[in-house]
C-alpha cells in the first residue's frame, strides 16, 4: 500500500532529529518555505522534502554540510522546486476547503448553539444577517490564512528575532478579524426574511458540520 501523506510527514519529523543543528536549521527553513505553498500537491511536496532529507542525511555521514549539498542560495532552490511541483487537483483543494469551512462553522455553531440548548428557547433568525455574518467570517478566515502563509514564507530564511515579533502580529490580527466576524450581527439591525428555528437546531447543525469535517479529514489522511 502507498504511504499516506500523514505518514510521510511523520517520517520527516523523525528523520530530522538525525541532522546536526546547523544542517537542521538550514533544512527546516527550506521545508517551511516549500510547504507554505497551498496550491501544490501535498503528496508531491512531502515526497520531495523527504527525498531531500534522505539525501542530506547521507551527505552528512560523509561530512558534508547542507550548504555543500543545496548551495548558498536555498531560497532560489526552494523557489525552483515550488515552481516545478505539480498542482494540487481541484477536487482535493475543494475537499480541503470544505474541511476547513466545516470545522470552523461546526465549532462556531456548536458553541453558540449551547445557549439556546440550555435555555430551551426557540430562536428567531434573520436570513440577511446570518448571510452577512457568514460572509464576514469566511473572508476573515481566508484573509488570515493568506496572511499567515505570506508571513511564514517571508520569514523562512530570516533570523529568530523577527519571527517572534511576527507571531505577536498574528495573534493580534486573528483576534481582531474573528471579533469582527462574530460581532457583525450586533453592528447592524437584523434584516432579511425571518424564521423561527428549534432550540436544538443550531447545536445540531454544528455537530453535523463537525462530523462532516471529521470525515473529510479522515478521507484526506487516508490518501
Amino acid at each position, binding site marked *: 500500500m502507498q504511504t499516506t501523506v500523514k505518514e510521510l510527514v511523520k517520517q520527516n519529523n523523525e528523520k530530522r532529529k538525525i541532522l546536526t543543528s546547523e544542517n537542521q536549521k538550514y533544512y527546516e527553513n527550506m521545508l517551511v518555505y516549500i510547504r507554505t505553498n497551498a496550491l501544490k500537491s501535498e503528496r508531491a511536496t512531502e515526497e*520531495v522534502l523527504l527525498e*531531500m532529507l534522505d*539525501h542530506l542525511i*547521507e551527505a552528512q555521514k560523509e561530512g558534508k554540510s547542507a550548504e555543500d*549539498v543545496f548551495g548558498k542560495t536555498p531560497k532560489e*532552490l526552494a523557489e*525552483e*522546486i515550488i515552481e516545478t511541483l*505539480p498542482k494540487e487537483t481541484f477536487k482535493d483543494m475543494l475537499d480541503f476547503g470544505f474541511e476547513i469551512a466545516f470545522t470552523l462553522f461546526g465549532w462556531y455553531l456548536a458553541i453558540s448553539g449551547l445557549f439556546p440548548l440550555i435555555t430551551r428557547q426557540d430562536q428567531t433568525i434573520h436570513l440577511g444577517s446570518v448571510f452577512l455574518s457568514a460572509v464576514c467570517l469566511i473572508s476573515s478566515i481566508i484573509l488570515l490564512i493568506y496572511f499567515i502563509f505570506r508571513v511564514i514564507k517571508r520569514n523562512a530564511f530570516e533570523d529568530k528575532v523577527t519571527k517572534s515579533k511576527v507571531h505577536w502580529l498574528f495573534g493580534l490580527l486573528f483576534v481582531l478579524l474573528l471579533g469582527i466576524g462574530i460581532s457583525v450581527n450586533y453592528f447592524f439591525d437584523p434584516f432579511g426574511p425571518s424564521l423561527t428555528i428549534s432550540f436544538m437546531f443550531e447545536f445540531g447543525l454544528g455537530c453535523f458540520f463537525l462530523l462532516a469535517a471529521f470525515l473529510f479529514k479522515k478521507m484526506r489522511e487516508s490518501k
Partner: protein
Amino acid sequence: MFRTKSDNGVNNMSIRSQLLKGVLDGCVLAMIEKEEIYGYELSQKLQAFGLMGISEGTIYPVLLRLQKSNWIVGTMRPSGNGPNRKYYSLTNEGKENLKRIRSEWNLLNDPITKILRGDEDANNC
C-alpha cells in the same frame, strides 16, 4: 570544486550552471537510462563523471520537471538496509526524448566546439 586563479569561483559557477541548464535534463535522463537510481546516488554519479560545481540539490527540480512531463517515474522501494527510497526509471516517452536530445546534442556539439575554439572558417577542421 575547481577555481581558476584569475576569476572568482562564484562567477565560474554561475556561468557553468547557465551553460548546463539546457543539457542537465539530458544528463539526468542518460544516467537513469543505465539503471534505476535514487536521488543521492544520481548526484554522486554525475559528480563522478566530473560534473562539479553545481550543487547536488539542483537535481531535484530537474527530477520533478521530468516526472511532470512523464519522461521518468519514481517508485518507492525499500533499499537493502537503508530507508525506503524513490527509484527513478525512464518511461517510453522519456526514452524517445533522450534519443532526440542525444541527436540534437550531436548536431550542436561539433559546431559549438569549433566556434568557441575560434576556428577561422567552417572548413577548417
